[in-house]
C-alpha cells in the first residue's frame, strides 16, 4: 500500500458507503432506539410514582377517618396497616423519582433526540452525491466535478462525526448524581454528627 486513492471515484464511493452503513446509520438507529426506550421507561416510572402518591393520599384520608372511630380489635389492625401504608407509600413515590434521576432518562432523551435530528440534517448533505456518474479524467487532469463531490463527502462525514462529538460532550456534562441522594448524604452526615454529640454529652 503506498498512497491515498482519494481521487478515484470508486474508492471514494466505497469508503462513503462503508461509513454510512457501519457508522452513520447505526448511530442514528442507536439514538432513536435509546430515546424511545428511555421515553417508555420514564412513562412507566411516572405511572408507578402516581400510583404510590395516589395510594398515599387515599390511605392517609382513610387512616384519619378510622382514627376517629371507636377502637375494636379488627379496626386497630386495619388502622395500624393503613398507618404503615401512609408512611411507606410517599417514600415509595420518592424512591421511584430517585431511581429515574439515577438513570437520567429526561436528559438523555433530549440529548439523543437532538443528535438523531442533527444526523437527519447531515443526511441532506449526502443526498445529492452521485458518485456513480463520476469518472476520473483520462488524461489524469483534475476533475472539478469529482473534487466538488469529494468536498461534499468530506462535509457529510465531518458533520456526522461533529454530531457524535457534540453529543458526547453534552452527555459528559450531563452526568450528575441525583440531587436527592446528595441531599440525603448531607443530611445523614449532619445527623451522624448530632448523634456523636449526643453520645458524648450523655453521662
Amino acid at each position, binding site marked *: 500500500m503506498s498512497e491515498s486513492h482519494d481521487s478515484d471515484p470508486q474508492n471514494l464511493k466505497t469508503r462513503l458507503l462503508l461509513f454510512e452503513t457501519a457508522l452513520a446509520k447505526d448511530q442514528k438507529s442507536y439514538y432513536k432506539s435509546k430515546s424511545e426506550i428511555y421515553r417508555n421507561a420514564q412513562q412507566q416510572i411516572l405511572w408507578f410514582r402516581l400510583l404510590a402518591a395516589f395510594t398515599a393520599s387515599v390511605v392517609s384520608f382513610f387512616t384519619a377517618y378510622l382514627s376517629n372511630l371507636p377502637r375494636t380489635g379488627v379496626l386497630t389492625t386495619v388502622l395500624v396497616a393503613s398507618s404503615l401504608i401512609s408512611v411507606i407509600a410517599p417514600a415509595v413515590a420518592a424512591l421511584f423519582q430517585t431511581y429515574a434521576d439515577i438513570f437520567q432518562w429526561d436528559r438523555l432523551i433530549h440529548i439523543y433526540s437532538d443528535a438523531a435530528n442533527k444526523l437527519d440534517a447531515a443526511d441532506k448533505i449526502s443526498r445529492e452525491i452521485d458518485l456513480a456518474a463520476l469518472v476520473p479524467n483520462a488524461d489524469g487532469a483534475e476533475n472539478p466535478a469529482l473534487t466538488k463531490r469529494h468536498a461534499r463527502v468530506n462535509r457529510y462525514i465531518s458533520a456526522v462525526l461533529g454530531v457524535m462529538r457534540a453529543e*458526547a460532550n453534552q452527555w459528559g456534562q450531563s452526568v450528575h448524581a441525583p440531587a436527592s441522594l446528595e441531599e440525603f448524604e448531607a443530611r445523614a452526615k449532619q445527623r451522624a454528627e448530632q448523634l456523636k454529640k449526643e453520645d458524648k454529652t450523655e453521662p
Partner: protein
Amino acid sequence: MTNTNPSAVDTPKNQNPLTEGNGWAWLRDWPKRPGQIKPDQNYFMIDPAVLRAVLAGVDESTRKDIMADVDFADKEILETFRERDAEAKKQQNTYRILQLLVMSIAFLSTVLGGLQLLATTDAEHPALLTVLSATEGLVVLITVIIVFPFADRNTVMSSWVHNRQRAEALRQEYFRFVTHQEPYDLVPEFTDRQDLLGDRIAQILLDQPIVVNAVQTTSGGPNS
C-alpha cells in the same frame, strides 16, 4: 447519495445491544453482577458482514486499498477500544450499584423517620419509639462511617465518563482514518498515515488535545 445498501441497519449493532420490545423499559439498565462485564471480543467497528457486502462489487485495487486501512485501524484501535468500552461499562455498572444502594438506605431512613413519627402517637408502646430511633441512628451511622467513605461515587462516575469518552474518541478516530478525513486526507503516503494515527491514538489516551487542521478539539464521546 449512494443507493446500494448491503445491510439496512434497523437496530444498532455498534454499541450496547438492545433487546426486543419495550416492556419493562425502566428495568433495562438495571446493573449486572460485578465481574460479569468483560471486553467483547465479538465487537468490531465495522461488522465483518457489512464489510464483505460493501466490498463485494468493487475492483481489486479499491478492495486492497480499503482493507489495508481497515486492517491497520483494527490492529491499532480495536483492542484498546474494547478495553476502554468494557472499563466504562464496568464503572457505569458500579456507579449505578452504589447509587441504588444509597437510594435504598435513603428509603429505609425515610420509612424509619415516618414510623418514629407514628410511634410518638402510640402511648401504649413507649419502647417502640426508642427501638425505631435507635435503628434509625444505627442506619445513619453505618451509612456515614462505612458506606459513604468506601463507596466513593464521584470517583467511579469520573472514571466512567473518562473511559466512555476515550472509547468514543477512538471510535471516531477509526472512521476518520478509514474514510481519509482530515488530517489523514492531507497525508498521501500510507506509512505516514499510520504514524499519524498512532500519534493521535496516543493523544487520545493521554488526554491531550487533538489538533485537527489547526483547530484544537477535545476528544470525547459517550453512549452508555
